[in-house]
């Protein structure tokens, strides 16, 4: 089994709170269950969506998983970190669901994932909410104009010429502000999202 941990130097206060919640869940505390559900549901459904591309099915799998988590709460073990546990469990649930129905895997053509990477994959996995949070934080560092240009062109997919029109500035200005925004974001998100470059900021 994989013993490598990607331990981060700082102690996140969230973690102890999460571990406590986990223990309370084990003891049958509905509030703790609800808290874990609300924190992770959306992220887990989106994660399930990478295996099962129909939303209702993905939600089904995640909901079934949570029901199981509750009914079998006494048997769950203490965990260092909740996220990889949930991700791994949901992944297995998805694969089982797929196997039962003969659904195609989205990345079935790249069957290169070793068993070892699977664990690590879930440890390293960035959740939608995490990325979003980081992005929102980083966006705060931009000037209003840089931010508008970035949001319109990169997040809403508006053409640069149209951005210029809407903001009442020249195309050149849009290009410049966008370049500045990208520079700031690349710098800000660098350590966390090595590869944001390709998809988000490219």
């Amino acid at each position, binding site marked *: 089994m994989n013993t490598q941990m990607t331990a981060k130097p700082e102690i996140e206060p969230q973690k102890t709170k999460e571990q406590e919640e986990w223990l309370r869940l084990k003891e049958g505390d509905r509030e703790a269950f609800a808290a874990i559900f609300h924190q992770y549901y959306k992220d887990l459904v989106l994660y399930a969506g990478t295996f099962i591309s129909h939303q209702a099915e993905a939600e*089904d799998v995640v909901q079934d998983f949570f029901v199981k988590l509750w009914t079998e709460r006494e048997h769950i073990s203490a965990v260092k970190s909740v996220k990889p546990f949930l991700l791994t469990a949901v992944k297995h649930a998805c694969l089982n669901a797929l196997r*039962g129905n003969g659904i195609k895997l989205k990345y079935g053509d790249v069957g*290169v994932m070793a068993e070892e990477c699977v664990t690590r994959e879930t440890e390293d996995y*960035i959740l939608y909410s995490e990325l979003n949070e980081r992005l929102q934080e980083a966006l705060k560092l931009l000037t209003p104009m840089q931010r508008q240009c970035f949001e319109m062109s990169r997040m809403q997919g508006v053409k640069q010429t149209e951005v210029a029109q809407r903001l009442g500035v020249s195309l050149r200005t849009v290009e410049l502000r966008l370049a500045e925004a990208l520079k700031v974001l690349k710098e800000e998100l660098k350590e966390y999202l090595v*590869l944001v*470059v390709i*998809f988000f900021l490219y």
Partner: protein
Amino acid sequence: MEERRDIEIDELIARCLSHELRPGEGEQLERWLAEDEEHVRYFTRCRNLHDLYSPAFPPEGIDEKKAYRQVDARVRGRSLRRRRWTTVAAAVVGGLALGMGWWLSRQAEVTPQVQVVQRVEQQAVPQGIVLELAEGQVIALDSLREGEGAYVGMSALRDEDAIAYAQGDSVETEVWHTWIVPRGKTFFLTLGDGTRVWMNSESTIRFPMAFRGGERRVCIEGEAYLEVAHDASRPFRVELQGGEVTVLGTAFNVRSYQGEGEQVTLVEGKVQVLAAKEELVLAPGEQAAWEGDGGMPVKRLVNPALYCSWYEGKWLFENGKLEDIMALVARRYDLQVEWETETLKNVRFSGEIRHSEQVEDVLRLVELADDISFEVEGQKIRVKYLR
């Protein structure tokens, strides 16, 4: 730590993830991945980001509050545990992505099928849920802001398609509220005593904002699933159009649509049904049914899931008549049904259907399970044989 990556590799990965690899590139990528574990890790991270950047479905469309209510309902109502029927069907699977549990099979015929549902863009028609006050004043649910408490002299919290009344007796006089849920909508309420009520479409509930005195009384027309908060000192009574249910603390479904007869299905606990001066005591799994006003109630043993699963956001059918299925669909999506021939009404199905946003999703399932087709035009569905 971060070695400089080949732009070529980045482009290759990008194309792989968007399924645009050119011939030979797949092997090239696999060779690169096999070189080093770090490469695999890098690829995994890229895929992670790609998934976040272009998720399979919009994150805003995931309703976690609704999902929690469904999960919570399942967690509490142990006897209603989901049963997947997928294994029952000798499934004929097309080579396509398809949904678990999203199938229907025709019972009478030989070949049950599992099939694909594709999302068709057409929203369920929005129709407003309203609150009617004793004085006849009508307030639209949508006009109440989310998370807002203490409006119209009451302390209640709005939470999307749900309202929770504050517990306790802060209200001095007995004020009655009436919630009217139209066709095409469902609604969830928590009453002042903690009782939880799932309202089905085209249904009305009337109750005092705070229960006072020796009993808790609500009036229901249409269909609702209730989980009554236990309080032995104050029995909970549900008044139906043609009968009454008395409860101490339990979960059950009442169905009392005008002209469709009355039904009380017990899931947990014990209830007493009073209709036409006849009293019946139900045990879990039992149902009392009678004809509208004045009919004698009859007790029978049923699978409660067939009658109650609607509140978990799905329908279950066991040899159900298409006529009955379409009546549910019509009510849930606010549509009118037209039949090409009467014989269609008697076609029977078994299976599970989730309530999708789009009525087309539901209809497609039925279509694919049999040689039936539907034409939706505005508010009308025409049911025909497929030719």
